[in-house]
């Protein structure tokens, strides 16, 4: 990671205005969005949008041609081009030929993408942004930090200073007054401008219509007052049918700003008369700029389903800490990372893709149904192929991929840690590892890994068998979690075996883009876990469960090892996470709760993979309530804890404040017990609470459940 990038993260993190504004917004947005979607079947709506947009991106060229025919039949001039330079030249030439001296613009990310303003200004034309946020950053000489709210990173004090320095002295940090000031200053510019430039939210091929949504009303003025209107529209805005405007317009304001509808929506299907009676000159530029190429990429075609609502930014635990500028100058956040890789260059996404912690929040809220985290992994994979793995990572994976060496090193680590360990925690580590313990204590490596401990457990002989997949944390740090799993399953008459050949689940390699390594991990595990005939393969780690159930297949497919897919699928069918299996066993009457046990209140932390991939989040809550425990939900119970596997090592600066927020929410809930289904989250949160000196007990659901059953 370059120092410059790390510095930009540190700068953002140390800007209290930024983190405060974004943090508050993310809380308000969450509630507002839920309210806006009340009574709406979001899954059905986004499935419809995804289908409309996906079908459009399969036929960009045809739709662009159809749009051109329909619009030109009404007198609109349409220019289709793949080249950003041709767009800039077209607009500049038009402006010069028509004697345009001043231009007013409503918000358009496409014009940001091609740096249009600079080009026009260089030719001596006055260009005014009129969206309040865009105007502020234009005056401040900055770039948008958010697709929908470009100036969200600035305080009213900063805005007042910008207005005072750049427009008129003496502006006070009073928001209504600042807004009125902007209205007063921009009004004559609207009235005097010779040309209006807008973007569009949708372009309808069959009617040649563009749809523009704004709240401020500036797009209505931009498209009404100047005698020439130019709209710049990216190909991804094309849809075929007029009626398909409805689902997009229904979702966009709800997802963007938690509004049912923006104040203004204009559907322009041809030139209308100007205020002096002359016909308006209407130009629509359809810009490809790699969208067609993207539509032919089997993985990234999906990203063209984006409707530019920026909800992926609003729910991102990383974005709300660092804001947009860390991501770059145009498109920011999750989808911005993907768009930057395409519209700029794959290399340009090299650093920003590492910001993604893979929590999956954005996938759940995307109205275009885009699997953004998965696409970011694909970027990682392609970057790793193009540039190779960083040396240190390579060394780590060569160890992980060598089962014996890995296990030997873990045992060696147990011996090596002795001087630093205390009460089951490592509180201080020397030198290069010190970042790891700055904000949370790490668990000590267990004296005896679970693979050895299980041999000493006296299990009943049962007809039904389950293979236990430990994963590194249960095996080497938390063998007691594994013991609880065995205890519970034994009670239900299931014998647990621990196939010795199992190795790392491959998640660390996969999440770093090292798919070859991940695929080999998967293949080794498939052999080990299918060696004996068992009914279930159970894991107490959601990341491992997802690896066994889904990623093994995906990794083998990605590297073309198709011969091994049937075995991978066979394994996937047997794989189940601990809580889901326990709940099934309770339902079958094979597990019974102990009456009269001492219970307490508990709060529950949703682990990312457990909730958003396995969708098992309600299961442990239900189990523990049945056991007699009282659930107290914490705020943001399903927000990431900042662990993210190796994220905590790569970006400890970001991981730490995410954890701090989680810890505060845990403490605020006021329950003496926190249950979690993921050993990684247990490590992160238990360590964090230990550092704070908290008395709250943190356990895996399996541990508490084992004590609650007859």
């Amino acid at each position, binding site marked *: 990671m370059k120092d410059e990038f790390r510095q930009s993260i540190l700068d953002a993190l140390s800007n209290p205005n930024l983190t405060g*504004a974004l943090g*508050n*917004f993310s809380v308000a947005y969450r509630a507002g969005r839920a309210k806006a979607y009340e009574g709406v079947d979001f899954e059905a709506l986004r499935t419809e949008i995804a289908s409309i947009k996906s079908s459009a991106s399969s036929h960009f060229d045809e739709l662009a041609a159809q749009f051109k025919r329909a619009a030109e039949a*009404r007198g609109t001039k349409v220019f289709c081009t793949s080249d950003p330079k041709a767009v800039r030249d077209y607009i500049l030439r038009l402006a010069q030929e028509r004697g345009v001296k001043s231009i007013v613009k409503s918000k358009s990310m496409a014009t940001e993408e091609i740096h249009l303003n600079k080009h026009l200004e260089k030719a001596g034309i006055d260009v005014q942004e009129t*969206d*309040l*946020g865009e105007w*502020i950053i234009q005056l401040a000489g900055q770039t948008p930090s958010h697709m929908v*709210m470009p*100036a*969200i990173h*600035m*305080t*009213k004090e900063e*805005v007042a200073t910008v207005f005072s320095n750049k427009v008129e002295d003496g502006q006070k940090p009073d*928001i209504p007054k*600042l*807004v*009125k000031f*902007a*209205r007063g200053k*921009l*009004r004559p510019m*609207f*009235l005097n401008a010779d040309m209006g430039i807008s973007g569009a939210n949708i372009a*309808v091929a069959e*009617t040649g219509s563009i749809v523009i949504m704004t*709240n*401020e*009303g*500036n797009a*209505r*003025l931009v*498209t*009404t*007052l100047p005698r020439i209107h130019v709209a710049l529209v990216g190909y991804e805005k094309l849809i075929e049918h007029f*009626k398909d*405007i*409805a689902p997009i*317009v*229904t979702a966009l304001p709800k997802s963007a*700003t938690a*509004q*049912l*509808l*923006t*104040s*203004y*929506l*204009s*559907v*322009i*299907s*041809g*030139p*209308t*008369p*100007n*205020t*002096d009676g002359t016909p308006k000159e209407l130009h629509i530029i359809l810009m490809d700029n790699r969208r067609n190429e993207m539509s032919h990429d089997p993985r990234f075609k999906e990203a063209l389903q984006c409707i530019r609502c920026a909800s992926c930014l609003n729910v991102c635990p990383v974005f709300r800490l660092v804001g947009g500028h860390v991501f770059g100058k145009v498109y920011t956040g999750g989808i911005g990372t993907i768009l930057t890789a395409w519209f700029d260059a794959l290399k340009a996404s090299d650093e920003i893709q590492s910001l993604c912690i893979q929590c999956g929040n954005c996938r759940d809220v995307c109205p275009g149904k885009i699997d953004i985290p998965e696409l970011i992994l694909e970027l990682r994979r392609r970057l790793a192929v193009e540039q190779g793995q960083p040396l240190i990572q390579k060394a780590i994976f060569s160890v992980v991929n060598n089962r014996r060496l890995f296990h030997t090193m873990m045992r060696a680590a147990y011996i090596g840690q002795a001087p630093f360990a205390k009460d089951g925690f490592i509180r201080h580590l020397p030198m290069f590892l010190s970042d790891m313990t700055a904000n949370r204590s790490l668990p000590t490596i267990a004296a005896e890994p679970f693979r050895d401990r299980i041999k000493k457990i006296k299990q009943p002989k049962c007809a039904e068998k389950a293979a236990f997949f430990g994963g590194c944390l249960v095996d080497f740090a938390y063998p007691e979690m594994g013991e609880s799993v065995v205890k519970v399953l034994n009670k239900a008459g299931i014998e647990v075996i621990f196939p010795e050949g199992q190795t790392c689940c491959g998640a660390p390699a996969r999440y770093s883009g090292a798919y070859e390594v991940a695929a080999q991990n998967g293949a080794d595990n498939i052999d080990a876990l299918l060696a004996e005939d068992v009914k279930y393969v159970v894991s107490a780690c959601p990341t491992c469960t997802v690896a066994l159930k889904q990623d093994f297949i995906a990794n083998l497919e990605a590297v073309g090892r198709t011969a091994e897919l049937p075995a991978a699928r066979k394994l996937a069918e047997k794989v189940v996470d601990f809580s889901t299996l326990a709940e099934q066993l309770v339902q079958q009457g094979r597990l019974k709760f102990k009456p009269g046990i001492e219970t307490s209140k508990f709060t529950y932390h949703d682990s990312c993979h457990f909730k958003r991939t396995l969708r098992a989040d309600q299961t442990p809550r239900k189990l523990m309530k049945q056991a007699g425990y009282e659930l107290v939900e914490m705020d943001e119970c399903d927000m990431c804890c900042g662990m993210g596997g190796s994220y905590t090592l790569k970006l400890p600066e970001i991981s730490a404040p995410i954890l701090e927020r989680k810890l505060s929410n845990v403490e605020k809930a006021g329950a003496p017990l926190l249950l979690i289904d993921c050993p990684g989250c247990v490590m992160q949160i238990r360590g964090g609470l230990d550092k704070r000196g908290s008395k709250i007990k943190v356990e895996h659901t399996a541990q508490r459940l084992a004590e609650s059953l007859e």
Partner: protein
Amino acid sequence: MSTVLESSALIESFKTRAEAVSAKVEHVATKQEALDLIVRLLQQEGVEDKPHCGAVWAACPMLGAADKDKLAASVPGLTFDVTRDLAADAKVGISQMEWALANTGTLVQCADAVDTRLVSTLPLLHIAVISTRAMLPDLPAVLTRVDPLKSAYLSFITGPSRTADIERVLTIGVHGPERLIIVLVDDLEVAA
């Protein structure tokens, strides 16, 4: 009977939604009552024949049979000949809308004629008249009724102009009107 009930439910929903986005909603029975109400509103707002105090009323079906001279006489400063300069200087703009959407509190207008846009964008107060018979449930319903080949500029208006671009604080009234008064009229013919 059921259609009456349905339509009153739509009107109720429209009112709730429009008021939730800071519009003010008045409901009258007849066109005459609507005209009287508007005259009263203009007088209350201090419309007069002075700079920055005028009102502009865009041509619309409800004005067809009305006595414009009488209206103009009762409110000096009110004009029906909308120009860019008059609209830019006016305090109040008045126009009639084609449809209303109950589930979002939205007004819809075929706004090809530029004066309809001038009066609803430039003045600080916009008074929008709409027949309750033109009430539709939602956006898909209106999209099947409008023909983009016939109207080149369709305007959807939901509440007054707003922004939250500074510190996410909602502020009403940016480039468009800072107030929107919607006059619902039962007995008003619907445009074809």
